[in-house]
């Protein structure tokens, strides 16, 4: 036991004292924030076609008249009699020529938009929606309903989902937030396993290639060395993780405070539509906050740590065995790929099936398989998973870990002293039997 502690202490201090560790601990949350913020920004804003589209409209008089204005990024113009539309289109003076030649506005199938360069999917669909809305308004007006009546009859907002528990208490439920929480947790586990698992692997490889290992195994059992290494790196990961949580918490609190001040200020604004919108968005926010507040936190945190640690321990023991067996970095790939397959598979399952049916059969099966359960359990837990299921899955996971450590130790014990030829799966099997 003392030896495991000495090894663990070395693995931990060497890594935590490392400059890269300190920099990454402070920089990673910022980088991750920038990365996600950036991708969300580009997904919503950056890719969108924001250029103003000049479009000539012709055909149905009533419809043309109702559209003769600007909407969103479109500027609709009724052309002069002598305009050479085709020429202007080919010279790209205008972006489109919309011919609304339908007599019956209920069916817009024969209307055409002639363009030189195709519009994006989003642009086309928003144009389509706009034309349909205008057509509907004209149809309603033709049936004697006034513009004012139409405007005041439009329904706004979204329905909200409320969950009722066994005690009959109703709670705000947000599928989006649950999915987000689950997905973030599973991604964190996925990253943690890869980053720290390969750290264990490199550490085993370093000892082998630097020829330190023979000196060490003359003092400690290979099993102790391997376990000390795995636990030491786990502690490094947990330290980093705790630091990230604290940092994020501080950041979130800071941002929250800033937004609260902004909200307070907005209440003092004159009574305009702007204020209405702010209040609406504040209400949305409070609903979201309520949903976040009502997640089963005790369960989520417990499950996260149990499976976070279990998943890492299971995979890192396999990674340690691989690191002990190979002689150079380039030999790693052939073993890493098949070993990390279940993990990647877990993420795919998590994203597709679980979101469609978090408590379905497939989700349940894969959250029992120890190589995918850390990811699947974490995705499912915000939706509510029974403690029996969690306990069974954790039991399977940790039993498999102990079995895997035992097998890996057998490979490790021989692998670290084998130099020269590149090992094969057959060698692994042989070393386990020895």
């Amino acid at each position, binding site marked *: 036991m*003392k030896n495991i502690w*000495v*090894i663990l202490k070395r693995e931990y201090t*060497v890594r935590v004292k*490392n400059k890269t560790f300190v920099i990454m601990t402070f920089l990673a949350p910022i980088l991750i924030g920038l990365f996600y913020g950036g991708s969300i920004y580009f997904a919503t804003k950056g890719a969108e076609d924001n250029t103003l589209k000049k479009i000539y409209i012709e055909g149905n008089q009533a419809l043309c008249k109702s559209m003769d204005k600007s909407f969103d990024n479109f500027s609709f113009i009724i052309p002069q009699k002598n305009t050479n539309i085709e020429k202007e289109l080919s010279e790209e003076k205008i972006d489109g020529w919309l011919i609304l030649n339908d007599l019956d506005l209920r069916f817009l199938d024969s209307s055409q938009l002639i363009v030189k360069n195709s519009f994006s999917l989003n642009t086309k669909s928003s144009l389509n929606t706009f034309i349909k809305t205008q057509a509907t308004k004209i149809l309603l007006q033709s049936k004697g309903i006034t513009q004012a009546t139409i405007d005041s009859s439009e329904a706004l907002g979204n329905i909200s989902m409320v969950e009722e528990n066994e005690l009959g208490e109703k709670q705000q439920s947000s599928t989006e937030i649950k999915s987000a929480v689950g997905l973030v947790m599973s991604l964190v586990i996925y990253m943690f396993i890869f980053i720290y698992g390969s750290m264990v692997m490199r550490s085993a490889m370093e000892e082998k290639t*630097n*020829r330190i290992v023979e*000196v060490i195994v003359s*003092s400690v059992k290979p099993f102790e060395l391997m376990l000390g290494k795995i636990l030491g790196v786990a502690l490094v990961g947990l330290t980093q993780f705790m630091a990230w949580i604290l940092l994020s918490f501080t950041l979130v609190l800071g941002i929250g405070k800033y937004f609260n001040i902004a909200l307070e200020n907005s209440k003092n604004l004159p009574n305009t539509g702007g204020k209405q919108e702010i209040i609406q968005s504040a209400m949305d926010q409070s609903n979201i906050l309520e949903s976040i507040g009502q997640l089963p936190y005790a369960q989520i945190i417990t499950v996260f740590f149990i499976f976070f640690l279990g998943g890492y321990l299971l995979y890192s023991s396999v990674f340690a065995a691989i690191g002990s067996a190979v002689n150079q970095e380039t030999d790693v790939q052939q073993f890493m790929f098949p070993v990390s397959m279940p993990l990647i598979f877990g993420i795919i399952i998590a994203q597709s099936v679980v979101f469609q049916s978090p408590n379905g059969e497939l989700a349940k099966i894969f959250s029992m398989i120890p190589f995918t359960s850390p990811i699947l359990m974490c995705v499912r837990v915000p939706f509510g998973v029974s403690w029996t299921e969690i306990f069974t899955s954790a039991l399977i996971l940790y039993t498999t870990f102990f079995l895997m450590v035992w097998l890996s130790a057998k490979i490790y014990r021989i692998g670290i*002293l084998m130099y020269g030829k590149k090992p094969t799966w057959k060698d692994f099997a042989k070393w386990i039997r020895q």
Partner: protein
Amino acid sequence: MNSYISVENVYKYFDDKCVSNNISLEIPQGEIFGLLGPNGAGKTTLIRMLATITQPDKGTIYINGEALSEKHIKQIGYMPEERGLYKKMSVVDQLLFFAELKGYSRNQAKEEVKFWMNKLEIVDWAPKKMEELSKGMAQKIQFISTILHKPKFLILDEPFSGFDPVNADMVKDLIIELKNQGTTILFSTHRMDNIEELCNHLAIIHQGEKILDGKINEIRQQFFNREYALEFIENENIEYDHNEFSLIQSQINNFGRREFTIQLKENQAPRDLLNHYAKYNNMIGFKEKIPTIHQIFVNKVTSKK
């Protein structure tokens, strides 16, 4: 002879290949024991079993009368041929780590590290990282890490490789000092001069089998086949008369002298040889040709092939 280490009929197999075939050795207490063998002879396999890294498939190793097991780890110091240290760790952290692995408490470890760093005058190196040190310096640290815990049995596999002559002498002196303090030392090397200089006993291993062992003087005597060397100042005008003796070799040696190697027959004594050749007044030398360990080694290993 009081044996500290006894290897009794040890076998070790890799797959179906026998890499240690019925090896028995007695390593006397407080002696330096030389282990010789060509590459791939099975020295490392035997050494790893002695260092408790692997176990024999058959047979037993005893240390001070007890069957060797993991509980003896702390009494053993092992410096493998393929050795290294953590590049990113400082000298002092590295030494403390090894001392703690050998069972020292943090404070004891600090005391020991301080003692050895002072003794070898390397206190200034303490905060340096291993990657900043030269190969010779690193070897010194490696040596300290091996003996830091005062092992009773020390295994040194090619300890001088990588040392310049000055550092090699320093380590040699340390080895002798440890021997004088009662440490039993197993010394594995290819360098016969080191063996003859340091060891009293040796064993030669070849193709997994022990082909020779014993006290070095006795072995050399055993391989002495009554050959003598006679040395003359070279003079082309002299005709030598060898009729009674069997001349094995006649050559001009490194010093430009004429040297005859003569093997005595059963009924001849060294005095007869001396009497016969003394008449040539250019004779300046006469000595027994006791084979060196190198010659015995080459002889044994090639005859086995």
